[in-house]
Protein backbone atom coordinates (compact mmCIF):
# COMPACT_ATOMS: atom_id res chain seq x y z
CA UNK A 1 0.00 0.00 0.00
CA UNK A 2 1.44 3.38 -0.94
CA UNK A 3 2.01 6.05 1.69
CA UNK A 4 -0.55 8.26 -0.01
CA UNK A 5 -3.34 5.69 0.04
CA UNK A 6 -2.46 4.76 3.63
CA UNK A 7 -2.76 8.44 4.63
CA UNK A 8 -6.11 8.67 2.85
CA UNK A 9 -7.41 5.61 4.67
CA UNK A 10 -6.19 6.83 8.06
CA UNK A 11 -7.79 10.20 7.35
CA UNK A 12 -11.09 8.41 6.58
CA UNK A 13 -10.90 6.40 9.80
CA UNK A 14 -10.09 9.45 11.98
CA UNK A 15 -12.79 11.51 10.27
CA UNK A 16 -15.29 8.79 11.01
CA UNK A 17 -14.29 8.48 14.68
CA UNK A 18 -14.31 12.27 15.14
CA UNK A 19 -17.66 12.57 13.45
CA UNK A 20 -19.21 9.83 15.62
CA UNK A 21 -17.99 11.54 18.82
CA UNK A 22 -19.35 14.92 17.69
CA UNK A 23 -22.64 13.27 16.74
CA UNK A 24 -23.07 11.90 20.25
CA UNK A 25 -22.54 15.35 21.75
CA UNK A 26 -25.09 16.81 19.37
CA UNK A 27 -27.55 14.03 20.19
CA UNK A 28 -27.08 14.70 23.91
CA UNK A 29 -27.85 18.39 23.37
CA UNK A 30 -30.82 17.58 21.14
CA UNK A 31 -32.22 15.28 23.81
CA UNK A 32 -32.21 18.31 26.10
CA UNK A 33 -34.38 20.12 23.57
CA UNK A 34 -31.65 21.92 21.63
CA UNK A 35 -33.12 22.32 18.14
CA UNK A 36 -29.94 23.88 16.75
CA UNK A 37 -27.96 20.81 17.72
CA UNK A 38 -30.46 18.61 15.92
CA UNK A 39 -30.35 20.94 12.90
CA UNK A 40 -26.57 20.36 12.81
CA UNK A 41 -27.19 16.62 12.71
CA UNK A 42 -29.56 17.15 9.78
CA UNK A 43 -26.89 19.21 7.99
CA UNK A 44 -24.30 16.50 8.53
CA UNK A 45 -26.27 13.46 7.50
CA UNK A 46 -29.11 14.50 5.20
CA UNK A 47 -26.93 14.50 2.06
CA UNK A 48 -25.53 11.01 2.58
CA UNK A 49 -28.86 9.58 3.62
CA UNK A 50 -30.56 11.18 0.63
CA UNK A 51 -28.01 9.72 -1.77
CA UNK A 52 -28.61 6.18 -0.48
CA UNK A 53 -32.38 6.54 -0.27
CA UNK A 54 -32.60 8.04 -3.78
CA UNK A 55 -30.75 5.03 -5.15
CA UNK A 56 -33.30 2.76 -3.50
CA UNK A 57 -36.56 4.62 -4.17
CA UNK A 58 -35.42 5.95 -7.60
CA UNK A 59 -37.01 9.34 -7.10
CA UNK A 60 -35.11 12.40 -5.94
CA UNK A 61 -38.08 14.32 -4.49
CA UNK A 62 -39.51 11.28 -2.73
CA UNK A 63 -36.08 10.55 -1.35
CA UNK A 64 -36.00 14.02 0.29
CA UNK A 65 -39.44 13.30 1.78
CA UNK A 66 -38.10 10.05 3.21
CA UNK A 67 -35.07 11.87 4.62
CA UNK A 68 -37.25 14.48 6.35
CA UNK A 69 -39.51 11.80 7.74
CA UNK A 70 -36.50 9.83 8.98
CA UNK A 71 -35.16 12.86 10.86
CA UNK A 72 -38.56 13.60 12.39
CA UNK A 73 -38.86 9.98 13.55
CA UNK A 74 -35.35 10.20 14.95
CA UNK A 75 -36.30 13.36 16.87
CA UNK A 76 -39.43 11.72 18.27
CA UNK A 77 -37.43 8.66 19.38
CA UNK A 78 -34.24 10.31 20.57
CA UNK A 79 -34.81 8.85 24.04
CA UNK A 80 -34.59 5.37 22.49
CA UNK A 81 -31.25 6.03 20.78
CA UNK A 82 -28.53 3.77 22.10
CA UNK A 83 -25.14 5.57 22.03
CA UNK A 84 -23.50 2.17 21.51
CA UNK A 85 -24.40 2.63 17.85
CA UNK A 86 -23.26 5.52 15.74
CA UNK A 87 -26.01 8.06 15.12
CA UNK A 88 -25.54 7.59 11.37
CA UNK A 89 -26.21 3.84 11.62
CA UNK A 90 -29.32 4.44 13.71
CA UNK A 91 -30.55 7.12 11.32
CA UNK A 92 -29.85 4.96 8.26
CA UNK A 93 -31.83 2.19 9.89
CA UNK A 94 -34.87 4.45 10.16
CA UNK A 95 -34.34 5.78 6.63
CA UNK A 96 -33.81 2.33 5.11
CA UNK A 97 -37.00 0.99 6.69
CA UNK A 98 -38.98 3.97 5.38
CA UNK A 99 -37.47 3.53 1.91
CA UNK A 100 -38.26 -0.20 1.84
CA UNK A 101 -41.83 0.53 2.96
CA UNK A 102 -42.18 3.10 0.19
CA UNK A 103 -40.84 0.72 -2.47
CA UNK A 104 -43.16 -2.06 -1.28
CA UNK A 105 -46.20 0.21 -1.17
CA UNK A 106 -45.79 1.27 -4.77
CA UNK A 107 -44.67 -2.12 -6.10
CA UNK A 108 -47.83 -2.66 -8.12
CA UNK A 109 -47.56 0.81 -9.69
CA UNK A 110 -43.98 0.12 -10.65
CA UNK A 111 -44.93 -3.19 -12.21
CA UNK A 112 -47.39 -1.33 -14.41
CA UNK A 113 -44.57 1.02 -15.39
CA UNK A 114 -42.28 -1.85 -16.18
CA UNK A 115 -44.88 -3.27 -18.55
CA UNK A 116 -43.66 -0.51 -20.87
CA UNK A 117 -40.44 -2.51 -21.03
CA UNK A 118 -37.84 -0.42 -22.77
CA UNK A 119 -35.34 1.48 -20.67
CA UNK A 120 -35.48 5.09 -21.75
CA UNK A 121 -32.52 6.55 -19.94
CA UNK A 122 -29.43 6.15 -22.09
CA UNK A 123 -26.69 8.37 -20.85
CA UNK A 124 -23.98 6.97 -23.12
CA UNK A 125 -23.47 9.62 -25.80
CA UNK A 126 -24.46 7.56 -28.83
CA UNK A 127 -21.42 5.29 -28.66
CA UNK A 128 -21.95 1.57 -28.28
CA UNK A 129 -18.28 1.12 -27.42
CA UNK A 130 -17.84 3.52 -24.51
CA UNK A 131 -14.43 2.68 -23.11
CA UNK A 132 -14.59 1.80 -19.41
CA UNK A 133 -11.94 4.39 -18.53
CA UNK A 134 -14.33 7.18 -19.52
CA UNK A 135 -17.15 5.99 -17.33
CA UNK A 136 -18.74 8.90 -15.44
CA UNK A 137 -20.40 8.68 -12.03
CA UNK A 138 -23.71 9.93 -13.46
CA UNK A 139 -23.62 7.06 -15.93
CA UNK A 140 -23.19 4.56 -13.12
CA UNK A 141 -26.21 6.04 -11.35
CA UNK A 142 -28.16 5.94 -14.62
CA UNK A 143 -27.46 2.24 -15.11
CA UNK A 144 -28.26 1.50 -11.49
CA UNK A 145 -31.53 3.39 -11.83
CA UNK A 146 -32.44 1.24 -14.83
CA UNK A 147 -31.62 -2.10 -13.29
CA UNK A 148 -32.27 -1.80 -9.60
CA UNK A 149 -35.98 -2.37 -10.06
CA UNK A 150 -35.18 -5.97 -10.90
CA UNK A 151 -34.16 -6.50 -7.27
CA UNK A 152 -36.36 -7.01 -4.24
CA UNK A 153 -36.55 -4.02 -1.85
CA UNK A 154 -34.25 -5.78 0.63
CA UNK A 155 -31.74 -6.77 -2.05
CA UNK A 156 -31.58 -3.31 -3.54
CA UNK A 157 -31.16 -1.64 -0.13
CA UNK A 158 -28.35 -4.01 0.84
CA UNK A 159 -26.65 -3.70 -2.55
CA UNK A 160 -26.82 0.10 -2.52
CA UNK A 161 -25.46 0.37 1.01
CA UNK A 162 -22.77 -2.26 0.66
CA UNK A 163 -21.60 -2.19 -2.94
CA UNK A 164 -22.48 1.33 -4.11
CA UNK A 165 -21.99 3.33 -0.90
CA UNK A 166 -19.24 1.04 0.39
CA UNK A 167 -20.54 0.64 3.96
CA UNK A 168 -19.16 -2.21 6.03
CA UNK A 169 -21.04 -5.53 6.04
CA UNK A 170 -21.55 -5.38 9.80
CA UNK A 171 -22.90 -1.83 9.54
CA UNK A 172 -25.35 -2.82 6.80
CA UNK A 173 -26.49 -5.75 8.96
CA UNK A 174 -27.15 -3.35 11.87
CA UNK A 175 -29.02 -0.95 9.63
CA UNK A 176 -31.23 -3.66 8.20
CA UNK A 177 -31.54 -5.54 11.50
CA UNK A 178 -30.33 -8.81 9.97
CA UNK A 179 -27.27 -11.04 10.15
CA UNK A 180 -23.99 -10.54 8.30
CA UNK A 181 -24.68 -13.80 6.43
CA UNK A 182 -28.02 -12.42 5.23
CA UNK A 183 -26.30 -9.28 3.95
CA UNK A 184 -23.76 -11.39 2.03
CA UNK A 185 -26.55 -13.51 0.60
CA UNK A 186 -28.50 -10.43 -0.56
CA UNK A 187 -25.36 -9.02 -2.21
CA UNK A 188 -24.70 -12.37 -3.91
CA UNK A 189 -28.27 -12.63 -5.25
CA UNK A 190 -28.29 -8.98 -6.34
CA UNK A 191 -24.97 -9.39 -8.15
CA UNK A 192 -26.30 -12.46 -9.94
CA UNK A 193 -29.38 -10.60 -11.20
CA UNK A 194 -27.52 -7.41 -12.08
CA UNK A 195 -24.70 -9.25 -13.87
CA UNK A 196 -27.21 -10.82 -16.26
CA UNK A 197 -28.95 -7.48 -16.83
CA UNK A 198 -25.76 -5.48 -17.38
CA UNK A 199 -24.56 -8.02 -19.96
CA UNK A 200 -27.94 -8.07 -21.66
CA UNK A 201 -28.97 -4.40 -21.55
CA UNK A 202 -25.67 -2.56 -21.28
CA UNK A 203 -23.19 -4.74 -23.22
CA UNK A 204 -21.16 -1.65 -24.11
CA UNK A 205 -19.85 -1.61 -20.54
CA UNK A 206 -18.60 -5.19 -20.69
CA UNK A 207 -15.26 -5.47 -22.51
CA UNK A 208 -15.25 -7.43 -25.80
CA UNK A 209 -14.64 -11.15 -25.49
CA UNK A 210 -16.23 -11.33 -22.06
CA UNK A 211 -19.86 -10.65 -22.92
CA UNK A 212 -22.21 -13.37 -21.82
CA UNK A 213 -19.27 -15.35 -20.52
CA UNK A 214 -20.69 -15.89 -17.04
CA UNK A 215 -22.58 -18.99 -16.13
CA UNK A 216 -25.56 -18.04 -13.98
Amino acid at each position, binding site marked *: *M*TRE*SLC*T*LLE*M*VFDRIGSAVDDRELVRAARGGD*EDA*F*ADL*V*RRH*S*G*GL*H*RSVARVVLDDAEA*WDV*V*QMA*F*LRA*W*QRLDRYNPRWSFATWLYRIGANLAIDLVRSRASRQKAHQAGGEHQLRIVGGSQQA*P*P*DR*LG*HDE*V*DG*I*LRELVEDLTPQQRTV*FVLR*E*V*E*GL*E*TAEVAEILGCSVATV*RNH*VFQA*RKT*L*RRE*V*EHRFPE*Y*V*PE*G*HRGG*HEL
Partner: protein
Amino acid sequence: MSCETYREMLAAYLDDSLDEVRRASFRAHLRSCASCRAFALAEEPTLIFALAAPREPEPARVEACVTAVTAGIRQERLRRQLREPRRPWLAAAAAVLMAVAGVGGWWLGSDRAGVSTAYQAEVRDDAEVEATLTREGTVEIEPPPRIEIDMAQEEVRVYQYAIENDDSTGAVFIVNPGMEL
Protein backbone atom coordinates in the same frame (compact mmCIF):
# COMPACT_ATOMS: atom_id res chain seq x y z
CA MET B 1 0.61 -1.59 -3.82
CA SER B 2 0.99 -2.71 -7.43
CA CYS B 3 -1.77 -3.23 -9.97
CA GLU B 4 -0.92 -6.94 -9.92
CA THR B 5 -1.65 -7.09 -6.19
CA TYR B 6 -4.98 -5.32 -6.67
CA ARG B 7 -5.92 -7.78 -9.41
CA GLU B 8 -5.15 -10.63 -7.07
CA MET B 9 -7.50 -9.07 -4.52
CA LEU B 10 -10.46 -9.20 -6.91
CA ALA B 11 -11.64 -12.70 -5.95
CA ALA B 12 -11.43 -11.87 -2.25
CA TYR B 13 -13.38 -8.64 -2.85
CA LEU B 14 -16.17 -10.55 -4.58
CA ASP B 15 -16.21 -13.20 -1.81
CA ASP B 16 -16.46 -10.41 0.77
CA SER B 17 -13.41 -11.81 2.52
CA LEU B 18 -11.26 -8.66 2.34
CA ASP B 19 -10.91 -6.63 5.51
CA GLU B 20 -12.62 -3.25 5.30
CA VAL B 21 -9.42 -1.20 4.96
CA ARG B 22 -8.16 -3.28 2.01
CA ARG B 23 -11.62 -3.27 0.54
CA ALA B 24 -11.77 0.56 0.63
CA SER B 25 -8.29 0.68 -0.91
CA PHE B 26 -9.37 -1.72 -3.68
CA ARG B 27 -12.43 0.41 -4.51
CA ALA B 28 -10.35 3.61 -4.55
CA HIS B 29 -7.80 2.00 -6.88
CA LEU B 30 -10.56 0.80 -9.21
CA ARG B 31 -11.74 4.39 -9.61
CA SER B 32 -8.29 5.75 -10.36
CA CYS B 33 -6.73 2.99 -12.51
CA ALA B 34 -8.28 2.52 -15.98
CA SER B 35 -6.51 -0.73 -16.83
CA CYS B 36 -7.41 -2.42 -13.52
CA ARG B 37 -10.97 -1.17 -13.97
CA ALA B 38 -11.20 -2.75 -17.43
CA PHE B 39 -9.75 -5.98 -16.06
CA ALA B 40 -12.18 -6.04 -13.14
CA LEU B 41 -15.26 -5.22 -15.27
CA ALA B 42 -14.33 -8.03 -17.65
CA GLU B 43 -14.28 -10.41 -14.72
CA GLU B 44 -17.36 -9.04 -12.96
CA PRO B 45 -19.53 -6.46 -14.78
CA THR B 46 -21.42 -5.52 -11.61
CA LEU B 47 -18.26 -3.88 -10.28
CA ILE B 48 -19.41 -0.93 -12.34
CA PHE B 49 -21.61 0.00 -9.37
CA ALA B 50 -18.60 0.31 -7.08
CA LEU B 51 -17.53 3.24 -9.25
CA ALA B 52 -20.41 5.49 -8.18
CA ALA B 53 -18.44 7.92 -6.07
CA PRO B 54 -20.11 9.92 -3.31
CA ARG B 55 -21.37 13.31 -4.46
CA GLU B 56 -21.93 16.31 -2.26
CA PRO B 57 -25.59 17.38 -2.13
CA GLU B 58 -26.60 20.91 -3.05
CA PRO B 59 -26.22 23.13 0.05
CA ALA B 60 -29.54 24.86 -0.70
CA ARG B 61 -31.35 21.51 -0.74
CA VAL B 62 -29.77 20.53 2.56
CA GLU B 63 -30.81 23.84 4.14
CA ALA B 64 -34.35 23.33 2.82
CA CYS B 65 -34.35 19.94 4.52
CA VAL B 66 -33.11 21.51 7.78
CA THR B 67 -35.91 24.10 7.61
CA ALA B 68 -38.56 21.46 6.93
CA VAL B 69 -37.35 19.21 9.75
CA THR B 70 -37.16 22.13 12.22
CA ALA B 71 -40.68 23.24 11.29
CA GLY B 72 -41.88 19.67 11.78
CA ILE B 73 -40.27 19.53 15.21
CA ARG B 74 -41.93 22.81 16.27
CA GLN B 75 -45.29 21.59 15.02
CA GLU B 76 -44.83 18.37 16.95
CA ARG B 77 -43.93 20.32 20.09
CA LEU B 78 -46.96 22.59 19.74
CA ARG B 79 -49.24 19.60 19.22
CA ARG B 80 -47.83 18.02 22.36
CA GLN B 81 -48.29 21.25 24.34
CA LEU B 82 -51.90 21.51 23.31
CA ARG B 83 -52.55 17.87 24.09
CA GLU B 84 -51.00 18.06 27.53
CA PRO B 85 -51.79 21.37 29.29
CA ARG B 86 -48.83 22.58 31.28
CA ARG B 87 -50.95 23.69 34.26
CA PRO B 88 -53.55 20.99 34.85
CA TRP B 89 -54.32 22.54 38.27
CA LEU B 90 -55.72 25.58 36.45
CA ALA B 91 -58.37 23.43 34.78
CA ALA B 92 -59.20 21.80 38.11
CA ALA B 93 -59.47 25.23 39.80
CA ALA B 94 -61.75 26.47 37.00
CA ALA B 95 -63.98 23.42 37.39
CA VAL B 96 -64.25 23.99 41.17
CA LEU B 97 -64.98 27.68 40.61
CA MET B 98 -67.74 26.87 38.14
CA ALA B 99 -69.24 24.34 40.49
CA VAL B 100 -69.25 26.90 43.34
CA ALA B 101 -70.77 29.53 41.06
CA GLY B 102 -73.43 27.06 39.95
CA VAL B 103 -74.40 26.14 43.49
CA GLY B 104 -74.41 29.83 44.49
CA GLY B 105 -76.61 30.72 41.52
CA TRP B 106 -79.02 27.92 42.32
CA TRP B 107 -79.22 29.11 45.94
CA LEU B 108 -79.86 32.73 44.92
CA GLY B 109 -82.38 31.59 42.31
CA SER B 110 -84.33 29.50 44.76
CA ASP B 111 -84.26 32.37 47.29
CA ARG B 112 -85.47 35.12 44.91
CA ALA B 113 -87.07 33.22 42.10
CA GLY B 114 -89.20 36.06 40.68
CA VAL B 115 -86.38 38.57 40.30
CA SER B 116 -84.08 36.03 38.79
CA THR B 117 -86.55 34.89 36.14
CA ALA B 118 -87.21 38.46 35.08
CA TYR B 119 -83.49 39.17 34.80
CA GLN B 120 -82.89 36.07 32.62
CA ALA B 121 -85.74 37.07 30.37
CA GLU B 122 -84.17 40.50 29.99
CA VAL B 123 -80.89 39.02 28.94
CA ARG B 124 -82.57 36.83 26.35
CA ASP B 125 -84.41 39.88 25.08
CA ASP B 126 -81.14 41.77 24.68
CA ALA B 127 -79.76 38.98 22.58
CA GLU B 128 -82.81 38.98 20.42
CA VAL B 129 -82.68 42.73 19.99
CA GLU B 130 -79.30 42.32 18.30
CA ALA B 131 -81.08 40.70 15.41
CA THR B 132 -83.34 43.44 14.13
CA LEU B 133 -85.80 43.22 11.32
CA THR B 134 -84.98 45.33 8.30
CA ARG B 135 -87.61 47.13 6.31
CA GLU B 136 -87.71 44.28 3.77
CA GLY B 137 -88.36 41.83 6.56
CA THR B 138 -85.01 40.00 6.42
CA VAL B 139 -82.90 39.46 9.51
CA GLU B 140 -79.82 41.65 9.85
CA ILE B 141 -77.20 40.19 12.15
CA GLU B 142 -74.47 42.08 13.91
CA PRO B 143 -70.93 41.43 12.59
CA PRO B 144 -69.45 38.31 14.21
CA PRO B 145 -67.15 38.82 17.16
CA ARG B 146 -63.46 38.53 16.48
CA ILE B 147 -61.16 37.85 19.38
CA GLU B 148 -57.38 37.74 19.40
CA ILE B 149 -55.62 36.54 22.49
CA ASP B 150 -51.87 36.63 22.83
CA MET B 151 -50.98 33.94 25.35
CA ALA B 152 -47.33 34.87 25.80
CA GLN B 153 -46.62 32.40 28.55
CA GLU B 154 -48.13 29.57 26.55
CA GLU B 155 -46.08 30.62 23.51
CA VAL B 156 -49.20 30.53 21.35
CA ARG B 157 -51.63 33.08 19.95
CA VAL B 158 -55.32 32.30 19.71
CA TYR B 159 -57.56 33.77 17.04
CA GLN B 160 -61.29 33.22 17.34
CA TYR B 161 -63.71 34.06 14.57
CA ALA B 162 -67.41 33.53 14.31
CA ILE B 163 -68.55 31.98 11.09
CA GLU B 164 -70.20 34.50 8.80
CA ASN B 165 -73.93 34.90 9.50
CA ASP B 166 -73.79 32.25 12.17
CA ASP B 167 -73.01 33.47 15.64
CA SER B 168 -73.51 30.05 17.17
CA THR B 169 -70.52 28.50 15.39
CA GLY B 170 -66.95 29.62 15.97
CA ALA B 171 -63.57 28.81 14.53
CA VAL B 172 -60.49 28.96 16.69
CA PHE B 173 -56.98 29.14 15.28
CA ILE B 174 -54.13 28.47 17.64
CA VAL B 175 -50.90 29.67 16.16
CA ASN B 176 -47.32 29.39 17.25
CA PRO B 177 -45.92 32.90 16.57
CA GLY B 178 -42.56 31.36 15.74
CA MET B 179 -44.12 29.64 12.74
CA GLU B 180 -46.09 32.61 11.44
CA LEU B 181 -44.87 33.91 8.09
